[in-house]
C-alpha cells in the first residue's frame, strides 16, 4: 500500500550526457532549450532526479532523438 520507499523506487537511466556531448551542447545550452535551470540537467544526468514526461519529451526533442533512445528504466537497455 502507498508509495514505495525511496530506495525501492524504480530509477530512470538516461544517455543525456553522451548525446549532449555528441551534439556539442553544453548543459546551459540544453537547459535553455528545455526551459530549466542548468543544475536540473546535471541532476537528471546523474540520475538524482527523474524528469516529468513533458520534460523528458522536451529533452529528447532538443537532442534530436526518440525518447526511448534517451531514457530507460534502470536495468533495461535501449
Amino acid at each position: 500500500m502507498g508509495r514505495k520507499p525511496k530506495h525501492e523506487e524504480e530509477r530512470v537511466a538516461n544517455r543525456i550526457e553522451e548525446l549532449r556531448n555528441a551534439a556539442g551542447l553544453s548543459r546551459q545550452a540544453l537547459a535553455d532549450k528545455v526551459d530549466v535551470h542548468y543544475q536540473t540537467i546535471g541532476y537528471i544526468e546523474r540520475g538524482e532526479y527523474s524528469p516529468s514526461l513533458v520534460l523528458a519529451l522536451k529533452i529528447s526533442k532538443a537532442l534530436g532523438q526518440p525518447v526511448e533512445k534517451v531514457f530507460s528504466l534502470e536495468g533495461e537497455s535501449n
Partner: protein
Amino acid sequence: METKSFEERMDALGRKADAGVRDWVRNDSVFNWLRNTPARILLALVSVGVLYGIPAAQLFTRNMSQWTYIGALLVVIVLQKLSVRFAFDDDSEIDEYQMKRRNRAYRRAYKRIGLIIGAALALVAWQGIYLKASLGSGFQYSFDLASANWNFAFIFVIGLFALQKYLSWGIKGEPMRDSATKH
C-alpha cells in the same frame, strides 16, 4: 493610435523586465558562494544560531535589543532566499526539480513547526505538572512577561515561520565545480 503604441511599448518593456529577472534568478553566479553544500550548512547553523540564540541570550542577560534580533533575522532570511534562488517567492521562476524540492521543504517545515510548537507546549505542561507536584501550584502561570520579552516571543514566532522552510530545503547545494561543465 498613439495610446496603443505606448501600451505596446510598455508591454514590451514589461516582458523584457520579466525575462531579465527570470534570467537573473536562474543563472546568477554572483551569489554562488552561498549555494554550495558547505555554505548551506554554515548558513543553516547561522540561521539557527540567530533564531534561537538571540532570544536565549535575552532570557539570561535581559539586555539584547529586539532591533538587533529583527535585523539579524532579516539578514539571514535574505541570504537564505539568495541561496535557494528565491524558490519560495515566485512559481514562475522555478523549474520542476526546484518545485519538487520546494514542495518537500514545505511538507518538512509544516511537520517540524508542529513538533517545535508541540515540544514547547509539552514543556509548559511538564513545568505545570512539576510545579504542582513540588509546590502544589501547577498550571498557575501569570504570564507577566515584560513587554520586551513578548516582543522577542512574537519576533521568534515570525522568524520561525519565515526561516523553517529554508532550513527544511536541505543542506545539499549546487555543485561548486559545475561551472566547469556549464559551458
